[in-house]
């Protein structure tokens, strides 16, 4: 036998004197009538719920006392790095999501190589726009939330269940959002039952709003959505959808100073991910570079990019422009 534990010492999560459950333990009734030691009695299928009852300080969704009541702290919030444009498009049997790489600090560029598109679980992905630090915490919490549910229940949440869960988390951030720590996610996933990709958008108060075909969020989203509207074709192959997304990001970067275009000199390209029946896949650097090169080469000849046919019924002009 190795080391022997006499069981007298409390576990790391056994709680202190203020723990309402410790009374039950002291009475020696742990296994049957009282709460078992530590968090054995606190388990939940939702990690965020558990966190809220066990250590609420770890939740990202919390307001900062006194923040936003004077001009100085408001300025501090505005000076936090912000993430910008994310686009998503449903493709044949799946969905594609892409994000630019820029984070801004007011009118300055805070970072050129941030990643804002993440795997949330095997069959879904999320991106976010807004305050970078809060967004990162959101992504981390949501990833653990989905995995935790899967391990606790032995099955994955349905895609709608995941989208609703994310809405609840966004809603929980409303107080902080009112103080200026705004973060808005975009959620995409492969619906195994329906064999298709789906997109869900949110506002600061939650959601989800299901979007059809394509969507974009962030500062450059208007331009990106306008571009996607003209480029998108129903049931595009994943590769075409990825190219359309990169075109849309280029157009967003063209007109929005907070969105970064492909950085050919530093070799920083948009992050592209696909979610299909095969699961989540983030495209490799080389694949992203290839799409970015195609777009940039095309723009050398036609700076405004491919044009859509003026009259219905004509084939898309991208091929013969």
């Amino acid at each position: 036998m190795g080391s022997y534990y006499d069981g007298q010492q409390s576990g790391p999560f056994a709680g202190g004197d203020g723990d309402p459950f410790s009374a039950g333990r002291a009475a020696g009734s742990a296994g049957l009538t009282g709460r078992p030691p530590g968090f054995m009695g606190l388990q939940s299928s939702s990690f965020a719920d558990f966190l809220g009852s066990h250590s609420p300080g770890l939740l990202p969704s919390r307001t900062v006392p006194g923040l936003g009541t004077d001009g100085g702290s408001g300025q501090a919030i505005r000076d936090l790095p912000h993430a910008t444009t994310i686009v998503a498009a449903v493709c044949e049997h799946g969905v594609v999501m892409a994000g630019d790489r820029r984070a801004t600090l007011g009118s300055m560029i805070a970072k050129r190589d941030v990643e804002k598109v993440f795997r949330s679980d095997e069959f879904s992905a999320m991106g976010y726009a807004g305050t970078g630090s809060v967004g990162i915490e959101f992504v981390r919490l949501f990833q653990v939330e989905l995995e935790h549910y899967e391990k606790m229940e032995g099955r994955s949440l349905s895609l709608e269940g995941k989208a609703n869960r994310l809405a609840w988390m966004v809603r929980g951030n409303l107080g902080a959002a009112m103080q200026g720590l705004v973060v808005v996610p975009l959620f995409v996933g492969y619906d195994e039952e329906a064999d298709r990709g789906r997109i869900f958008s949110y506002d600061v108060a939650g959601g989800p709003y299901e979007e059809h075909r394509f969507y974009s969020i962030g500062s450059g989203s208007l331009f990106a959505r306008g571009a996607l509207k003209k480029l998108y074709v129903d049931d595009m192959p994943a590769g075409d959808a990825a190219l359309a997304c990169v075109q849309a990001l280029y157009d967003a970067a063209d007109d929005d100073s907070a969105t970064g275009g492909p950085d050919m000199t530093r070799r920083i390209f948009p992050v592209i991910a696909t979610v299909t029946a095969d699961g989540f896949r983030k495209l490799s650097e080389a694949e992203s570079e290839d799409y970015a090169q195609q777009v940039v080469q095309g723009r050398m000849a036609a700076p405004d990019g491919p044009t859509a046919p003026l009259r219905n019924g004509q084939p898309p002009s991208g091929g013969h422009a």
Partner: protein
Amino acid sequence: MSMPFYVSPEQAMRDKADYARKGIARGRSCVALQYAGGILMVAPNPSSALHKISEIYDRIAFAAVGRYNEYENLRKAGVTYADITGYQFARHDVTARGIANWYAQTLGTIFTESNKPFEVEIVVAEVGEQPSGDQIYRITFDGSVTDEPGFVAFGGQADQVSAQLKERYSDGMSLAEAFGAALSALSVPGNGDSKEVVASQLEVAILDRARDHRTFRRIRTARLDELIGESRALTAPAGTAPAGTAPAGTAPSGSNAPADSGPPTGPGPSNSDRGSGLGDGTPPNPA
């Protein structure tokens, strides 16, 4: 008013331990062992929904025997422990050692403070980047924890199962070899009454060293049948090839057919294992 009898602490602990041991001994043993590509866990389990083997974290798995409601509770607590540690710090800060310690403390507390101890035995295994980083911990109902390098058998008949596993175990086995060793160990006399190894009665899972992110993977249905076949093919030629004559073609199934004359340990790996042990000159059953 009746006076309560005095029970010495030694007696109380002994009673609790006997009670827990009896509860655990009602179930069949399970095994966990290292193979070249990771860690394999095999449990006899007729249910495909009520698992004995589960994922705890990226590189960590959990296996248990005993009362389902009790170890399920512990499993969920372990997942919670792992998830909150990984969320609070970083994913690679979650270790099997930490989880094993937490289980040991929890079970120890329950054993000493509660009237009824948990009737469970737990194994926590972690697959490392290299085989040298693999870890297997066994935690018993009273909170004792042992570090088991290479392989472990746990549950009611752990000693017999472990002895058989020790014979077959070697470092760097392939998955099929390790699976064959596990099957032969689980079918030693005394570990349940099932003579037949069928996929529907087994729960098999691996921690796959080669996989990124979450390494835990269940092996079921077609893949499990395939693995049973592979492990038999590995060991069968040693026992059946010496027959060399016309009936040899039917030897693998033929050796199973006269069940009353065969060893009482079930088919396949254990049969042929004994066959090879008998030496080359004796075909299994010429009749």
